[in-house]
């Protein structure tokens, strides 16, 4: 099962590498988003500094949604979903495989966004452990939910808009918790950072459980 999951993850990452996505496009896009926020929120005010934690997660949400979209565009293209259904790969492996590939890609995205935020918005990290814990939990939650809702909207028309519509309400609490945790980690708010990070872990765990249970079921057609 793990071998199969690895197979799927490797395939996904290879497709992305060939298409030169993560580094070539999503990374510059992420930086762009940071700049756009600066434009929207009037760069010279203190808004940016105080909102940095939230803007980080907004940018991850945006970039992550694109990566998730892409991950399922590849599968629905040319009827590939059929081949996936017909292959011997178990649905658990498929779920874990696609989620891990997304995890890797979203991590790359965050590795670019993080320093970007620090440099562009002029913030200082005061609690590295909290920062990493929250980032990890958030990334897991994003990948897992991404696969779950990606397959939910796969093969349906108008996925370009349907996927965000379904995904964002589920990820909104992650974004909220992540923003508050980051604000604590960045020192612009005192207090319950770890509670928020803990909430993120709970959300990630719940969605993983739901995903493992329901993925095979959702994969089926008619």
């Amino acid at each position, binding site marked *: 099962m793990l071998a199969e999951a690895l197979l799927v993850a490797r395939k996904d990452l290879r497709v992305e590498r060939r298409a030169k996505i993560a580094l070539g496009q999503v990374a510059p896009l992420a930086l762009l988003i940071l700049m756009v926020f600066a434009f929207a929120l009037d760069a010279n005010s203190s808004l940016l500094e105080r909102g940095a934690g939230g803007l980080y997660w907004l940018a991850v949400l945006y970039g992550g949604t694109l990566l998730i979209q892409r991950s399922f565009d590849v599968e629905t293209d040319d009827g590939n979903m059929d081949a996936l259904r017909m292959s011997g790969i178990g649905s658990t492996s498929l779920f874990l495989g696609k989620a891990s590939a997304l995890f890797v890609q979203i991590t790359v995205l965050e590795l670019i966004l993080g320093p970007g935020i620090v440099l562009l918005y002029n913030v200082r990290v005061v609690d590295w452990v909290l920062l990493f814990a929250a980032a990890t939990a958030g990334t897991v939650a994003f990948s897992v939910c991404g696969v779950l809702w990606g397959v*939910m*909207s796969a*093969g*349906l*028309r*108008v996925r370009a808009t*349907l996927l965000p*519509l*379904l995904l964002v*309400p*589920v990820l*909104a*609490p992650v974004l909220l918790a992540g923003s508050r945790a980051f604000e604590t980690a960045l020192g612009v708010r005192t207090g319950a950072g770890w509670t928020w990070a803990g909430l993120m872990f709970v959300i990630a765990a*719940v969605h993983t459980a*739901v995903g493992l249970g*329901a993925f095979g*079921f*959702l994969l*089926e*057609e*008619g």
Partner: protein
Amino acid sequence: MTAAANSGAKMTATPITRVLGVSALAATALMAVLGLVVSPPDVIQGEAVRMLYIHVPSIWIAYGGFALTSISSILFLRRSRRRPDQGRHYDRLAGSAAEVGVVFTAITLITGMLWGKVTWGTYWQWDARLTTTVLLFVTYLGYLALRRLPAEPTVRSRRAAVMALISFINVPIVHYSVDWWRTLHQKASLSVGRRPEITGEMYWTLLYSMLAVTILATWLIIHRYRVIRLEELRDEEGLEALIASRLNKAVGSH
């Protein structure tokens, strides 16, 4: 086929639902009288408290609707596991209950916002109760969007059922949000343990509104169910005709 069509035409209004409809109307009217005339203004909130009699029952009905959606979804999933053509009535029920739930959530949101304008001075506060309520609202809007997409009905129903189950998590969160987070939103004025400001009339009016809105919602759900069913029946009648015409044509050509 005409017989089916006739019974179909009747089906959105059987005697029982007509009675239900009339009583929903009467109950709502009485509720208005009770709420607007009989019950006294609140000591603190004044006349604005009358909003309470729609605001609170609506959300409870919405909770009920979403619960019904979840239960029907579970039943649908169990039924359709072996036989994909089965359990369609549970799917229809899930859909109609969610529609009614969304409508009543919207009513709570609207009354809440009006009430907020009066008591807090703004339509909206980013308070945990309010925020979770609107999150609940959009989640179920997404659910309805998924249901409305043009797709294979079995696929769509199954995905919608899974989504309904996941979405229900929001209901307890909305309910307990006032306990979990410090909120602006009222909980003291009506919490079960102590209700200093609530008078007997207010209490009974609230209970009565609850009943009236329940009748109204039941009637709406039954109606929506039947409309959806009629839509599907129309398809199915077409289906029988199609099978027949497919075979006729096929046999005829050989």
